[in-house]
C-alpha cells in the first residue's frame, strides 16, 4: 500500500510499534453474529451442531457465578480424591460396588465417584461447543444439587454446605429457601 517515498521530511514520525496489532473481542460476539446470520439464512448450523473450539483458554472472571459455585462444590465433593481414581472402575461397576459395600467402604466410594465427577466435568469444560456442553452442564448442576442435599442431611450444621446448597437451589429452582427437610443452621 504505502511507499517509503511517500513520507515527507516534514512529517515527524512517532513510534507506534508498541501498539498491539490485535484486540480480542468478548467471547459472546461470535455467537451473536452467527445467530444473526443464521436468522437471515446466510449460515447453516454445522451437521451435528459441533463447532470448532477456540484456542483461547477460559477465564474464571468470565464464568457465571453458578458455575463458579458448582466448580467449588465439585472440588469440595471430589476433595483429595482427585488423582486417586485410576480409571479401573467403569461407572456401572462403581454403582454396583457402592450397593455392595459396607459402611466403612462407602467413604472411599464417595472419594472415587467425586473424582469421576470432577474428571468428567473437566473433560466437558475442554469443549467450547455450547450446544454440546449445555446439557452436560445442566446434568452436572442437577447432580451437584442432589449431592449437596445429601451432604446437608449428613451434616446439617455445616455452614459451608448450607451456603453452597442455597446458591445451587437459587440457580436450579430459582429459590434460595428450598432447603432439605432437616434444619440447617446458618452461621
Amino acid at each position: 500500500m504505502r511507499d517509503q517515498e511517500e513520507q515527507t521530511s516534514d512529517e515527524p514520525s512517532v513510534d507506534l510499534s508498541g501498539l498491539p496489532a490485535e484486540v480480542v473481542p468478548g467471547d459472546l460476539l461470535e455467537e451473536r453474529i452467527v445467530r444473526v446470520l443464521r436468522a437471515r439464512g446466510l449460515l447453516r448450523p454445522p451437521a451435528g451442531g459441533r463447532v470448532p473450539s477456540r484456542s483461547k483458554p477460559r477465564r474464571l472472571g468470565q464464568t457465571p457465578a453458578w458455575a463458579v459455585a458448582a466448580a467449588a462444590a465439585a472440588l469440595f465433593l471430589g476433595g483429595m480424591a482427585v488423582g486417586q481414581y485410576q480409571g479401573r472402575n467403569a461407572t456401572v461397576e462403581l454403582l454396583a460396588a457402592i450397593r455392595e459395600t459396607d459402611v466403612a467402604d462407602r467413604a472411599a466410594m464417595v472419594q472415587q465417584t467425586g473424582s469421576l465427577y470432577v474428571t468428567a466435568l473437566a473433560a466437558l469444560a475442554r469443549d467450547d461447543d455450547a450446544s454440546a456442553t449445555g446439557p452436560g452442564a445442566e446434568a452436572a448442576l442437577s447432580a451437584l444439587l442432589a449431592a449437596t442435599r445429601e451432604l446437608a442431611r449428613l451434616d446439617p450444621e455445616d455452614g459451608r454446605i448450607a451456603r453452597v446448597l442455597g446458591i445451587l437451589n437459587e440457580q436450579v429452582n430459582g429459590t434460595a429457601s428450598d432447603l432439605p427437610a432437616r434444619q440447617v443452621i446458618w452461621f
Partner: protein
Amino acid sequence: MTRREQADPTDRELATRVTEEGDEIAFRTLYRRHTPGLMAFVSRVLGSADAEAEDVIQDTWIRAVGALERFRWEATLRTWLMGIALNRSREILRRAGKWVFDESAALTIPVPPHDPVDRLDLEGALRALPVGYRTVLVLHDLEGFTHPEIGERLGIAVGTSRSQLFHARRTMRRMLEAPGGDTEEGSQHARPRRADV
C-alpha cells in the same frame, strides 16, 4: 490438495464455502482469523469503549457476509472488511458530531501530566487525538494505507490526509513527551491547550 491447504484454507476458499453452502465452520474460521485485527482497528478509529467497537464488528460481518458474493477479490478480504468497518465507524462518529476534519477548528489537546510515571501511554494518546488526526494516523502508520487511498476512503483531499497525519504525529509526540524532557514543547503546558492546527 496439500495437507497445508486442508489445514489452513485461504480466505477465498472459506468465503466460497460461506456463500455457496452457508458453511458456518468456514465463517467462524474467517471470523477468528480477522476479527482481532479488525477490533484493534475499529477501537482506535472510534477511540471508545469495546462495546461500541463490538457493535461495529457485528455490523461489519453481517454486511460483509451479505455482500460476499459480490466481492471481486481485487483487494484482500482484510482490506475489504476494514473498509466496511471504517464506513460503519464513520456513520457512528458523524451521528455523534465527532467526524471533523476541519483543520481550522480549535482543538483541545490533553497535555502530558507532570509525573512521568503517569504519562499517557500510546493507546491513551491515540484515543485523545481528534478523530481526523487519529483516523489518518491509524490508516497510514498502522494499517499502511497511502494518502490517495485514505483520501478516497474518507472522502477527503490527499493534501488534507497529509496535513492531518503531520498534525497527528506532532500532537502524539507532544502528548508522549516527558515534561521537562529534551524537546521544547513538552514541558510548557500546565493546562489543556489548543492544538497547532
